[in-house]
């Protein structure tokens, strides 16, 4: 029972009008997205944007207040066990039992997961030089993150969900973790969702993008399509938004010029105008423009069409 996307590929994640309310406040609302299998998704947003809320609903640790989410066709409300088996999860701050040894931690993974791959887990620990007999609390932060990642990987689930995996690590450990992650998932067909508030960490890894602020999706889609559908324009400051060849996502004005990220229709490139300069945006520029974008209405809802629609 696997759902397909419009192009016949399997869907790893499907969310429809997904929302979660905490008391009066919506942690996430109106989240609709379809992620194909094999995508490496960067979920980017500031702290408090609703990233963890979304991830916990995907895993099934949190029940949606409204809407529905399914992982490889298994919905949130039915078959919690079937869904748990499909997701490997690395929680923020990589929680582990501190008085367990590394071997105990792997034993726990084996005991609690029928599909556990002990060979993979041990090979990873060997490759990383992590002593199996050492207690978790005696490991460095980077090693703890690696053990936690190994727990998620050795479960052999087709979807891997990582919540701020490197935010608590020092710069060297961050780099090593991301390099290892990239090498590990390359060519495996794993679908990965990796949440972060640091854009630069995700650029080389991700081929899919979801930007979340204030519990709302700002943009979502394959990174390549999104980059092709935007231009970074440098224009005279006096130019009104109405003359732009598409929706102005974010505009900064200096003394004489304005820099605007504009969403365009890639099939119909706009004619160049004298005094305008149009460049393809970088990954980071695109993400930052959406992160900085003001909500369009007083109620906080972004009523402008999202890029999900642009890319269809």
């Amino acid at each position: 029972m696997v759902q397909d996307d419009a192009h016949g590929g399997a869907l790893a994640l499907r969310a429809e009008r997904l929302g979660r309310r905490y008391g009066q406040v919506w942690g996430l609302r109106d989240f609709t997205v379809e992620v194909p299998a094999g995508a490496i998704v960067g979920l980017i947003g500031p702290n408090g944007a609703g990233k963890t809320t979304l991830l916990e609903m995907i895993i099934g640790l949190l029940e949606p207040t409204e809407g529905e989410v399914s992982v490889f066709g298994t919905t949130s409300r039915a078959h919690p066990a079937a869904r748990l088996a499909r997701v490997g999860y690395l929680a923020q701050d990589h929680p582990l039992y501190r008085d367990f040894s590394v071997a105990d931690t792997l034993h726990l993974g084996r005991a609690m997961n029928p599909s556990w791959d002990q060979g993979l887990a041990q090979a990873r620990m060997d490759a990383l030089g992590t002593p199996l007999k050492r207690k978790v609390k005696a490991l460095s932060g980077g090693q703890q993150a690696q053990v936690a990642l190994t727990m998620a990987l050795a479960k052999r689930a087709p979807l891997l969900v990582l919540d701020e995996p490197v935010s608590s690590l020092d710069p060297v450990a961050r780099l090593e973790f991301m390099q290892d992650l990239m090498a590990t998932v390359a060519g495996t067909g794993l679908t990965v969702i990796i949440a972060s508030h640091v854009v630069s960490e995700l650029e080389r890894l991700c081929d899919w993008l979801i930007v979340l602020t204030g519990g709302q999706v700002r943009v979502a889609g394959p990174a390549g399509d999104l980059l092709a559908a935007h231009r970074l324009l440098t224009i005279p400051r006096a130019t009104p938004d109405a003359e732009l060849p598409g929706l102005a996502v974010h505009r900064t004005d200096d003394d004489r010029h304005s820099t605007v990220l504009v969403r365009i229709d890639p099939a119909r490139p706009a004619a160049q105008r004298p005094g305008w300069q149009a460049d393809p945006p970088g990954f980071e520029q695109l993400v930052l423009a959406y992160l900085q974008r003001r909500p369009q209405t007083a109620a906080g809802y972004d009523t402008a069409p999202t890029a999900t629609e642009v890319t269809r």
Partner: protein
Amino acid sequence: MIWVSWRQHRTQAVACLGVLAALAVYAILVGTSMRTAFSHDGLPACLARSQGTICQDAVQAFTGEFGSAVNIAFYSVLLIAPGLLGVIIGAPLVASELEYGTWRLAWSQTISRTRWLTVKLALVTGGLIVLGAAMTAVITWYRAPMDRLTGHLLPNIYDYEGLVLTAYILCAFGFGVLAGLLIRRSIPAMIAAFIPWLAIRLVIENLLRSHLVAPVTLVQNCGGLCIESGQNGGTGISAIPPATGRIGDWVLSIGGNAQGTQNVFTYQPADRFWSLQFIEAGIFVALTAAALGAAVWLLHRRPA
């Protein structure tokens, strides 16, 4: 999952064995000298012939030597010990996962969190039953000579023999688990679980226990030893034999009738020990089941 539960609770298991060993050492040391004195004083023969009436001096010498050690130091600790043990093991069972964030690890594995909790609860409950039974066995062996003088229905004796000690531990454990799930902090949960446990424990001991089965009323013609009408002659807990004349009876009230010709006793006969134990232990086991059932249901329904 069995291995996981054992790995997480083995430190507690070892600590419990340590407590049990300390209790056993104390019981063997004091219990052995108590047995020696009991035979040496000739009490077995005297009790067999006269229910202790013809050897009051020897009885008093024996209870004077061992009664205070047995009744005060030992049992005041044992009043709160089952509750402390239960909440110390119960409260962190879920609360520590929530405190340290490890619930995100534990509940995102393939085994569902409901199964995770029920297996843990089953194993820890089983361990506590074994521990409670072992403690009961040690205390019962240790108390045996004293029980031959007083029976084991009296408060402070009844509470540590038979079934109720184990049921007290289980109840505090159940309260601890539920409080830990609701409060999400181990230490506050221990306190929140211990207070109602102690309240229920004391209310049942002091108000309900004597009426769990309707007491027997005994009316005697008193001859010259009559109690004045309306005056309570005291229950004479320490009297050997008690006012009914049979060792082990738990005398609840002693009074005289209006004419001053008869004495009226109410009491629980010694042979009701097991029925009373079953009923009281049943109450605590039912409370345990309700608390643990609520915890499983809550975790199943509202995970985070």
